[in-house]
């Protein structure tokens, strides 16, 4: 099953390589990984999307917890949570009909066009991974020039939070 694991880690050089190294050394999957500092400059927040059986996921969370740099960990998938991913797509947009079609599609997906040239659009879109996939599907293969995805981040619903 697909799990989203959020971590608070010491904001130190090497912390990322320890976590990435753990996944490669033990043969676990990483679908995506995002990391940035938090409101506390000594902490980074990391979101890892991984796939595995219950047994593998249990090992992943235990092994991550064992790393000295990992301060706190939460498997988002165990409760209610919100997941978002951000994407930029650079699309070939030549000719009036194509340009308006892309604009229409973008409106449906609540995407924003953030850069325009006479032959391209750059579109920004936020949502679940599935929504981003669906948007890409609506585009013609030959029209996609470049895609940048941030990887997923997650936050729990309700009062509960992953903080110290």
């Amino acid at each position, binding site marked *: 099953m697909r799990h989203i694991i959020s971590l608070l*880690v010491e904001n130190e*050089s*090497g912390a990322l*390589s320890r976590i990435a*190294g753990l996944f490669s*050394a033990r043969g676990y999957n990483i679908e995506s990984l995002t990391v940035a500092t938090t409101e506390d400059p000594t902490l980074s927040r990391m979101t890892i999307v991984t796939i595995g059986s219950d047994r593998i996921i249990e*090992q992943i969370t*235990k092994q991550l917890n*064992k790393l*000295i740099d990992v301060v706190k960990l939460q498997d988002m998938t165990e409760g209610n949570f919100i997941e978002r991913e951000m994407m930029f797509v650079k699309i070939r947009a030549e000719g009036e009909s194509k340009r308006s079609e892309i604009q229409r599609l973008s409106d449906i997906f609540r995407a924003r066009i953030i850069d325009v040239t006479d032959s391209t659009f750059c579109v920004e879109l936020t949502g679940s991974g599935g929504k981003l996939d669906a948007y890409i599907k609506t585009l013609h293969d030959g029209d996609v020039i470049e895609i940048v995805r941030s990887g997923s981040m997650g936050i729990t619903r309700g009062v509960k939070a992953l903080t110290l």
Partner: protein
Amino acid sequence: MELSGSEILVQFLKDEGVEFIFGYPGGAVLHIYDALHQQDDVKHILVRHEQGATHAADGYARATGKPGVALVTSGPGATNAITGIATAYMDSIPMVVISGQVPSGMIGSDAFQEVDAIGCTRPCVKHNFLVKDINKLADTLKKAFYVATTGRPGPVLVDLPKDITAPQIKVPYKYPKKVSMRSYNPTVKGHPRQVKKAVEVLLSAKRPIIYSGGGVILGNASEELRKVTHKLGFPITETLMGLGGFPGTDKQNLGMLGMHGTYEANMAMHDCDVLFAVGARFDDRITGDTSKFCPHATIIHIDIDPASISKTINADIPIVGEVKTVLSEMVKILAEKDLPKSRSSALESWWKKIESWRKQDCLAYDKTSKHIKPQSVIETLYEVTGGDAYITSDVGQHQMFAAQFYKFDKPRRWINSGGLGTMGFGLPAAMGVKLAFPNSDVACVTGEGSIQMCIQELSTCLQYDLPIKVINLNNRYLGMVRQWQEFFYEKRYSHSYMDALPDFVKLAESYGHVGIRVEDPADLQSAMEEAFSLKDRLVFLDVITDQTENVYPMIHAGAAHNSMEISPQHKKKLGAINPDGELA
């Protein structure tokens, strides 16, 4: 007090109570060596190769329970140390390795003798630190010792760029007595409800067995284990790392289990209805085929490392905590219970079955051979040392023979590389042990293959006057490799023969030691006695052993516990054994 980085390091080691530091100098650690030179409290032992430094520190740690400390230079110094670090990591040995590094400003420039020591060691340390600020040096060292010695112990590396240790830069130093790390708080006490539940399951068991591992030794829990085992009256089997955790000569002890475990231990594992795992990690050499492992058992598992629980084998009653604390809790609960004076009838018939397995004498070997049998060497070693020596070993057949035939009654007497299986471990490890216990007998059981992997340390032994006894089981083969080739590769002995061996007697002599060769079984006893009578000399006992001997019993990789390859001597008795494995 204002000190340089090097002085802080040395003063810190003193304050931390470090007696010995095993190391080898080089460019990046010259400032540190200069500081070491100006004091006598921390004794530096100059090894001949950095692998030896880490193994010696490791041996010291295993024998004493205190952290071992090694000091190596940057680049090749650090990479040479890695085998020893990985060895300690796999067996959870507390160790702190200080490595020199090129000056901070040159890191990343491919400088002379530069290697990313943090990156290289990352997968085989519990944690590592690169010190970038001299003001954080003392705290970082304290954290290194704290992490290495608490929770599930392990090696920690501290990488020190040369500018951090420079004599010109001095900062105030105060020994950090306390350390706190928000991200590291090992669990000590087991969950009370789980402990109570475990005791109830134990008391209702009909065919129980205790399976104890290295955690008992590391956690100094032998006394508690002995109490619980005696109180319950259960059979107990130990892993390779757990030998000595429970007295080897006690009737309740079935000996080692697993790939080369005893027949009775493995059969009991297969048939048990309750498995009580204490500080053991269900390694593949123990479990064999995990789908056929203890098929009828409810499994109770105590371990300090949550990640070890239900990793390969699912635990029905997991208890995360220190083995010592959890077992003492159990002792208390058991004391309050009214246990029947005599064993229950179920336990009585379980023991009867076990005794019938034991009677088969699975470790029997040919005592009439005209060649020296390796098993007889270990038996003789056991007799001559009164069963009370510190035994280190290398890796291979000799290691298994030592584990099977030397009955360790005390913890920390059996020192071997169990997890990583590092050839070359035995001799340097014995140096660490002998330094810690100069008045005890210390023997390194080795083979002609393993000993050559760190033989240069014979020179260190002369320099520091370490009268270790090297017991070389010389069969001119990489014995365990040969055994597997015999069983699984139709006797195609590919590169397992040790051709062009040195004359070990002359070699020992050229290193300034005593060498004795034994070829006739009739001379074995007297040669062993002579070796141990030379109290202040290192003796290299080169024992020419039978080339064809194999280690039995053997569970083939991936097989179940009840399907063992047994020795020819054991097979002879098979005619008298019924299909249940019992003697008729």
